[in-house]
Every structure is written in structure tokens, then in C-alpha cells.
């Protein structure tokens, strides 16, 4: 029973990180209808920004930790906007396949530039937040895990507020429903799309910091697997739906953790893909999504 609860806790904390990343994917897909492969590397960039930031901040206080996270979020937001502006915007009217390929190109560029300039070997991520382990009976909860869950919850609430209670959020929803109609009623599509990228990338940046705090070995390829899994989570929850992405992330994190604790542990990556395949075959709209009929 204790093991089950511990694994559940591990799963929720892993799932929260996937949720943050998945929301980023879903936001971009909502407005641009393509999968931003480079999102995972923005996540990695966030972790590296945090690494550099952590050198300057006095460590071990929640305030400085949050400051570094804020710095990372700003940095990744800018990176995301730059990527959109220079790599994706010229292809706005091109077939989706081309944009997909560009996204792969951007992803590879970030990864290999990172390898060149930071070195491919993992480096130690400094502890940004004070560490404490709480023991509830036989259960061990680390403060980092709690932080992940807490920050994710706050960010999701913040996001929902922005999307449903602000004008810019309404504009975002308009663009994702029908870009042409949105521009006809006066929405500046380009600005909204930039803003969406900024938002998604900032979440990725936060995710990068939280991930690095929990698993303090960062390297330029650290985003690849979490990115793929977060995408699976987004699809699982219903691509285009933010609560879906959060739910998908949580479910995936929990399932992956339980598989990892079993004898099939080395197959846990493949398991995530198996889930993707099953979902796409049997319920392509995901858990919380709606069926989209493609009109000609």
C-alpha cells in the first residue's frame, strides 16, 4: 500500500511536468494546427538559463528560486517568439508538412548548438530551492516534488484565467477556432500567435526549471524524451484542450511511473508510444477533446 502511494506521488509529480509541457504543445496546436517539435528544446533552454541564473543568485531561498524561474520563463518566452517569427511565420501558408520539417530543423539546431556550446556531457544543476524531505509515515515526499505540483497548479489556474477572462485570451480562442474570421473581426493574428508562443514557451521554461530541480543533471538533449511524452500526453488528453493536456500529462506520468516500478521498467518509453498508438486508433480526439471533422 505504501509502495502504491509512493509510486502514485512520484507519478503525479512527473505528470505535472509533462502537463506543463503538454499545455505548451496544445496551445500552439490550437492556433497553428501543427506540432511544434522545437518545444522540447525550449524546455531545455529554460533549464540552461536557470543553470546560468543559479550561478548569480544566492541559493536556497524560495524567493531567489522563483526569481530564477521567472528569468527562465522570460528567456524562453523570447526564444519561442523568435522561433515563431523567423522560422514559422514565413511558412504560414505552406503545407503543414513543410512547417513540421522546419520544426524538426529548429529542434535539431537547438540541440546541436547546445551540444557544441555547452558540451554534451550532463552537468549538475544547482539546487535553486531549499530542499527538505517530509516523511508522512513511510512515505517520502521531497519538497521539489511538492514544488512541481504546486507551481504547475498555479500556472494552470493562471493560464485558464488569461484564456477565459481576458480580451487577449478571447482573441486566442478566436484565432484557434477560425483564423480568417478572427482577422475579419479585427484580431491581429500575428500578435496573438506570437503571444501564444510566448505563453507556451514560458510554461516550457518553467517546466525546464522544475524538471532540472528534480533531476539535477541537464544536458542539451534532455528535452527529447520528455518532449515526446508530453506530446503523447497532449494527444491523450485531447489536443487543443488545455485541461485535457493537464489530465493527459498526469495520467501519463502515473502510468509511466507504475510501469517503471514493475518488471517492464526498461520499456517505459515504448509504453508511452504504445499509449499514443492506442489512443490514435481508438479515440483520436483524446479523453477530453471533440471530434473535428475535416472540411474540404
Amino acid at each position: 500500500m505504501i509502495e502504491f502511494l509512493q509510486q502514485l506521488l512520484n507519478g503525479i509529480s512527473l505528470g505535472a511536468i509533462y502537463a506543463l509541457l503538454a499545455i505548451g504543445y496544445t496551445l500552439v496546436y490550437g492556433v497553428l494546427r501543427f506540432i511544434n517539435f522545437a518545444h522540447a528544446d525550449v524546455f531545455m533552454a529554460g533549464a540552461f538559463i536557470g543553470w546560468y541564473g543559479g550561478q548569480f543568485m544566492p541559493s536556497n531561498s524560495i524567493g531567489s528560486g522563483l526569481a530564477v524561474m521567472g528569468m527562465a520563463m522570460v528567456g524562453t518566452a523570447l526564444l519561442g517568439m523568435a522561433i515563431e517569427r523567423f522560422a514559422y511565420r514565413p511558412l504560414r501558408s505552406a503545407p503543414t508538412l513543410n512547417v513540421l520539417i522546419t520544426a524538426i530543423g529548429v529542434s535539431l539546431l537547438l540541440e546541436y548548438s547546445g551540444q557544441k556550446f555547452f558540451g554534451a556531457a550532463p552537468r549538475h544543476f544547482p539546487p535553486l530551492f531549499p530542499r527538505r524531505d517530509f516523511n508522512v509515515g513511510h512515505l517520502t515526499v521531497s519538497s521539489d516534488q511538492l514544488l512541481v505540483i504546486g507551481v504547475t497548479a498555479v500556472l494552470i489556474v493562471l493560464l485558464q484565467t488569461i484564456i477565459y477572462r481576458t480580451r487577449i485570451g478571447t482573441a486566442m480562442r478566436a484565432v484557434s477556432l477560425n483564423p480568417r474570421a478572427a482577422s475579419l473581426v479585427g484580431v491581429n493574428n500575428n500578435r496573438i500567435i506570437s503571444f501564444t508562443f510566448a505563453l507556451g514557451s514560458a510554461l516550457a521554461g518553467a517546466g525546464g526549471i522544475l524538471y532540472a530541480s528534480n533531476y539535477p543533471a541537464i544536458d542539451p538533449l534532455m528535452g527529447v524524451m520528455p518532449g515526446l511524452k508530453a506530446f503523447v500526453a497532449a494527444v491523450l488528453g485531447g489536443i487543443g484542450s488545455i485541461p485535457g493536456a493537464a489530465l493527459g500529462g498526469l495520467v501519463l506520468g502515473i502510468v509511466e511511473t507504475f510501469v517503471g516500478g514493475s518488471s517492464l521498467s526498461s520499456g517505459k518509453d515504448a509504453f508511452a508510444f504504445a499509449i499514443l498508438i492506442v489512443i490514435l486508433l481508438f479515440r483520436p480526439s483524446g479523453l477530453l477533446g471533440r471530434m473535428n471533422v475535416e472540411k474540404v
Partner: protein
Amino acid sequence: MRLSVVFSAGSEMVHSSHRLALLGTLALGAALMGCRQKSSAPANSIVVGEFASLTGKEATFGQSSNEGLILGIEEANATGGALGKQIHLVVEDDGSTNGEAITIVKKLISRDHVVAVLGEIASGRSLEAAPICQEEKIPMISPGSTNPAVTQKGDYIFRVCFIDPFQGTAMAKFAHDQLHLNRVAVLSSATAPYSAGLAHYFEERFRADGGEIPIEEKYNDGDKDFRAELTAIKAANVQGIFVPGYYSEVGLICAQARELGITAPLMGGDGWESPIMLQLAGAAADNCYYSTHYSPQNTAPNVQSFVKRFQKRWNGETPDAMAALGYDCAGVFVDALKRAGSTDPQALRDAIAATKNYPGVTGVTTIGPDRNAVKPAVIIELEHGESHFLQTVAP
């Protein structure tokens, strides 16, 4: 499928773009063929090749052994080289990637005309290169690959370190006899051949001694989260965990194990040997033990002298086991070269095979009939994030 329909289809006009493509490739090909790679080795020198993982996941292994090797070659050259010539070292990086070793070793042999190939630390990549060296009859000396299969590739393949059966057995004995552990879990990598091999030998000996291994978990290289596996291990109530992996994952495993409240000792092999391991584990590196090839704290005079010379050459860096192995690899090569009296591959091979009691910094090295070195292992203990030498295990 109606094949007749398919294959009787006529051809199309050759588009001008096709012609352009063709011309372009031909031009490139011609340019390449004409392009002779200038040999950068100075005339009248002996060329030896090294392949190592200078970048990538196991970068510290490659970089350390490379530094040790370079020091060894430089020292040999300073005392006149061998056979009256200077030794020129050509280094290629395999980027810790599968498949690269094959291409670069072929290049070293056929383009650089090396008399011997020195490398690698990671067993998987040595296994890739060994068949090629054997096929081309160029002696290969691995400084630190411990998987037994490497030297079984042929009689031109040697190593200057111990092999996993010995290492695994040594750690099993240590766990059982010295730490008095009877129930141990094994957490190994599913993707690194070294890890699977070492785990196997540990388990064999540990069970033979009467120990129990109630749970075995695997992870993939590159994984960051081991809490799932560790939680399952914790629930199995074991007295210790054997983690025969590479430092990048082991560091995180140590940290997460302690976080989850696992106080049992963690044990491992020479894959732990890296400064990054301590960084990643931090203060959680406590009550941990691993076997390796040497310790800089060994008070033997030749070891201390080596440590000082290495620090002088490489900006105060203290040599780790991989560096020491690289140094000894170079040393054995030069020694064999002198004894062979020529660069003829067969003679060189025989001289290497005849290496006896070479005074290496990783121990007195004798190459046995199976082309492995019979050497003692060293067990290092990690306490509060610091490593110190615990004991030597004789072969």
C-alpha cells in the same frame, strides 16, 4: 500486384534538374577522389591511433583516458621515443555514439596507417572496433573496456585492465563478506552492454555465496527519473543495491535513493569513476562503494609521482582511474614497441602479448594468455560526498 504492368512502364524524359543533380554529384565525387588527405604526421615517426569518446554521454571517460595517454606518449617522446623515432598520436572522437567507432577506426588504419590502435573505455564501442582491428591485423589495446567479449574477438586485441567477471566477483564478495549483505537488489542499464555484463557476473557470484537477489530493475541510459524503480526496490526490503551503470545515471540514482529514504549501501563498478558522479550525487554519496582500477590516494611512490606529473601537465587536475589507465595503455604500447624492435604488426602483437610485470600506475601489469591483464581492483568508498580509497582486492 501486377508486376508486368509495373515493370513495363516506359521511362520519362530526363528533366534538366535531374541532369543538374547528376552533374553536381559527379563533380563532388571527382573533387573528393582527387582530394588526397595530406598526412599530417611528421616524416620518420611512428604513428599510433587513439579513438575515444571525447564528447557525448561518456565524455569524461574519453577525455580522461586521452589526457593520460597523451602524457604517456609525451613522456616517451621526451626520452627519445622508441626505435629511434618520435611517436605521433592521431586522435579520433566517437562522440559516445554507436557506429562511429567503426568508421573512425577504419580511417585510422587505412588513411593514417597507424601501427596500433589504442581505445576505448566503453566496452560497447571497443566491441565495434575490435573485429576491424583483428581483420586488418593491427594490434588494439583497450585501456579500460571490461567486458570479456572484447579480447575474444581475436589475438590482436588486448586490454590493460581487469575484466567484468573479476570486477563483478570482487564486488559480490565485498558485499557478502565485508558488508554482510544477504539480500541485494540489482539496478542496471538495459542499454549499455557493460552494465548487463557486470550485473550478470555480480549476480552469479553473489548467489553462489548464498546471497539472494529478490528484485532486479532496469533503466535506460539517458533516463533521469529512477524513483519508480527505486520505490519498487525499497518495497522489497533489500539490504543493499548494486548499480553497475555509468556515472551520469548513477549520480542521480544515488541522490534519488537517499531522497526516498533508502539508507542501504549502494555499490557499483568502474562506470562510476567520474567527477560528475560526485557532483550529481552531492551529499547523497554516502555509504556507497565501487570498484575501480586505481586511486590517486594510493601512497605507492610511482602512483604519487604520476599524480604530480599529471597535475603539472593538465593544470592541476588530479588523474582519475581512466586517466591512469590511458597512461598505462600508452606505457604498455611503448614498452612493447621497444621490445618488438620493429613496427611490424605481428612482432608488435607478440611483444604486447609477452608483456610481463610492467610497472603500471594501475598496478603491475602482465598480459595473460587470454590477452587480458591480471590486476588487482581497488574499492573506493564514498562518504558525505567525498571519495576515499578503502582497500585493494587481489585477483
